[in-house]
């Protein structure tokens, strides 16, 4: 690889932007935590670090994240075993469905849970009809609900991560073990499981990380001071108690803990070498009826678990319970959404929210892709570990903390213009999407055949020309995937938007949150259905892109 300044040059712009959009809010945040009107002071930090309340928050945050990660991984494990080792009809569909959950907005999950598991939800209606019980089982607004919602979001994540890794391991070590006389169980315990351990651990840590910074699920489903995590407390302190200084101090504390978990995750996934990743599929035909039964039962439960809340959102969007407009089937919310009927209340913002969400998501996705592409090219071609770590930094900062940083910036520049609010929302989303876009692009760039670039150089093409004419075109499908991933992330983002925009920029998830809070479930479900539809469209496009590029490769 030739050493000219090209890759450095293209990485400089995104690095500068990253510094601006990430480090700026973080430092404002820090400044707020360390400086009072009298100047530098450790008083706020001391208070936070010594308050028993902080540690109560921390221990609950850790506890729920740990239980969520453990439950999700344990439930996913038998499924991953079955999926990795056996072929069955509809497997691709099930795997796609699992990765769909990866990009599902968490506020949508909240809604789905309220509709599906709530007191008058589908599960309870069924339960009361079957048993004749008078009282519904209380599922929501409890510790159980938090874990259940986290499991909903993360079981599929664990399932697809573990299946993906396991499914491509050749069976030869297991075969060797059988031939040496080991039983199937013995082989599983001494050969398969130790090989799987790093994958399982890193999946669990990733889930732990997600759940540690989980926000909207806890805010809505936790339902009380009793089940408050650090993130929710930061939001409450800033946006409800209106004490941004204390919120900042808390966010610094949360940032530090987050950093530790991130480092653990990186260390755990470092053991996963892509060295022996050949594309062999280890899955075989199902032989025994026991395996077949296990597969059918597991897959059916998964389908009900995943689709239940989503389908009930769609169904509920057509049901009106309002006494004013009549009960029963109704498309009223959709008419309100598309401006076909004048609406009072929050639904009047609906069409604006749809446009806002689309516009913001498109801008964010385009920027995130471009920056991630340039950064990843630099990281891969110059073998720069430090820039890779810098690119990962935004993962360590939770979106609530990020939103808080932008909130403080906005307060500082005394800008009340709507344009500034939009800009800040876009920047916050960009910071959130960038590391994910990078994670999507880097492996593709690393697996590119460098000899092809050398071939282009020997034909007289310059580094820049080769990059734009050979390198980047070859990455088309990875870029498309990164774009779509960023699009979905921005479209579903609620934490930072809620914290920073104070309701001035209304996106679909924001509106959804408000509709849930005002108990307008039909409206919420309509917005939810639109979000599901958008996510589906995005997702199917992504699948189609991966598919067609896969076929071309053969």
């Amino acid at each position: 690889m030739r050493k000219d300044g090209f890759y450095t040059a293209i990485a400089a712009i995104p690095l500068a932007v990253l510094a601006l959009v990430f480090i700026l809010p973080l430092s404002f945040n820090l400044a707020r935590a360390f400086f009072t009107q009298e100047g530098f002071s450790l008083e706020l930090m001391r208070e936070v670090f010594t308050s028993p309340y902080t540690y109560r928050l921390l221990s609950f945050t850790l506890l729920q994240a740990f239980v969520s990660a453990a439950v999700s991984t344990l439930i996913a494990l038998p499924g991953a075993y079955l999926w990795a080792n056996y072929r069955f009809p509809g497997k691709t569909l099930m795997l796609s469905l699992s990765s769909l959950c990866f990009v599902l907005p968490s506020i949508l999950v909240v809604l789905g849970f309220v509709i599906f598991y709530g007191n008058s939800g589908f599960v309870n209606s069924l339960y009361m009809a079957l048993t004749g019980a008078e009282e519904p089982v209380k599922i929501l607004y409890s510790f159980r609900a938090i874990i259940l919602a986290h499991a909903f979001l993360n079981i599929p994540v664990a399932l697809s991560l573990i299946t993906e890794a396991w499914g491509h391991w050749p069976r030869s070590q297991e075969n060797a073990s059988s031939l040496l006389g080991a039983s199937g169980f013995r082989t599983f315990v001494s050969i398969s499981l130790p090989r799987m351990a790093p994958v399982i651990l890193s999946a669990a840590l990733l889930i732990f990380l997600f759940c540690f910074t989980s926000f909207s699920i806890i805010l809505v489903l936790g339902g009380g001071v009793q089940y408050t995590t650090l993130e929710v407390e930061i939001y409450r302190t800033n946006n409800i108690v209106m004490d941004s200084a204390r919120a900042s101090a808390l966010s610094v504390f949360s940032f530090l803990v987050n950093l530790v978990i991130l480092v653990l995750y990186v260390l755990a996934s470092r053991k996963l070498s892509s060295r022996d990743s050949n594309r062999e599929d280890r899955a075989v035909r199902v032989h025994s009826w026991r395996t077949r039964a296990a597969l059918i039962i597991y897959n059916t439960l998964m389908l009900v678990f995943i689709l239940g809340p989503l389908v009930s959102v769609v169904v509920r969007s057509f049901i009106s319970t309002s006494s004013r407009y009549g009960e029963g089937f109704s498309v009223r919310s959709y008419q309100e959404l598309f401006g076909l009927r004048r609406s009072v209340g929050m639904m009047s913002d609906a069409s604006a929210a749809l446009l806002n969400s689309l516009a913001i998501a498109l801008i964010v996705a385009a920027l995130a892709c471009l920056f991630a592409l340039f950064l990843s090219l630099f990281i891969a071609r110059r073998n720069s570990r430090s820039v890779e770590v810098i690119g990962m930094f935004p993962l360590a900062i939770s979106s609530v903390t990020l939103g808080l940083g932008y909130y403080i910036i906005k307060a500082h520049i005394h800008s009340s213009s709507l344009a500034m609010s939009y800009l800040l929302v876009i920047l916050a989303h960009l910071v959130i999407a960038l590391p994910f876009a990078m994670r999507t692009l880097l492996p593709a760039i690393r697996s590119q055949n460098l000899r092809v670039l050398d071939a282009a150089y020997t034909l007289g093409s310059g580094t820049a020309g080769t990059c734009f004419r050979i390198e980047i075109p070859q990455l088309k499908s990875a870029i498309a995937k990164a774009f779509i991933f960023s699009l979905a992330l921005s479209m579903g983002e609620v934490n930072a938007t809620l914290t920073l925009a104070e309701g001035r920029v209304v996106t679909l998830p924001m509106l959804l949150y408000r509709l849930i809070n005002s108990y307008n479930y039909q409206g919420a479900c309509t917005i939810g259905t639109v979000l599901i539809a958008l996510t589906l469209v995005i997702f199917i496009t992504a699948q189609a892109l991966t598919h067609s590029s896969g076929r071309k490769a053969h």
Partner: protein
Amino acid sequence: MNGTIDIIGLRKAYPSFTLDITLSVRQGEFLSVIGPSGSGKSTMLNLISGLDEPEAGKIIADGRDIAHLPPQKRGIGMVFQDYALFSNMNVEKNLTYAMKLRKLHRAQRRQQCDELLSFVNLSGYNKRKVTTLSGGEAQRVALARALSARPSILLLDEPLSALDANLRRHLRDEIRRVHDEDGTLTTIYVTHDREEAFSISDRIAIIRDGRIEMVDSPENIYRHPSSLFCAYFTGEGTSLPAQMFNLSIDCDTIFFRPEAVTVTDGCFYGDADAYLILENAEVLSAEFLGRGYLLGLRYNGHRILAESQQRPHSTSATLYIRKTQMLMFKDGLAVK
């Protein structure tokens, strides 16, 4: 335990071909299986070892049919192409894995492990991580591990294909030595390298499209191939249409090896009646082999390969083909 193995009508259909094998291997024999890629060599081993299940047929080992036993119960050792060493264990743990399953005592395990390691010339490698081994070392550990369960039958699936030429030669001799020192071990060795098969086997089986084409000693396979396919698969040669010559035998093709041909561009001293003579063959190429030259010639539009001690001086030469070394084929099969 007795190492004789009789494979009778072992069948399994695959999308690209159907495997249908009948084959007997004697106790203590070293049998190689060669064939083009995709002919079913590895599949056959998978059926014998029990990693794959046949649709029909029997595998009689030690007097009983093992075709439907799980691999754990067969007492067959196997060495894999990619070694398949347990990456989460060191060398010693790999070797004692089967001994633990057989509930050997610690001291016994240690002793047998050391014996095995010295057997494959890797003494002192006990605590090495398997990921730090070179290809040759890994293959020797794989061999030792396959022997650690005391199998009476050992299967090797292209064990040397990932190694470089020198190491291959060295290790194949070692594999043969291990086989011989055991005395009663029956070995089935799959390879795509015919020279490897020639150099170490008692007998060779040639497999094509899932069927055994021929089983015989290396010498017989080379000198008297049962079909044109076997003839070409076991070495260089030339086939010419039979009508070019006035032959009394009913055949359509004659085949001969390069060494059956004597090339001269001058006088020939010998009994001309023992030879078929092709005059004025055009010399197209001369490939230096070390011990001589492999000449590519053209006669009446037919390509002919011949061996020669000297590089020919002119562009045309006369070929003398020894009649006793000419093989006759009809419809691809040998004519006696």
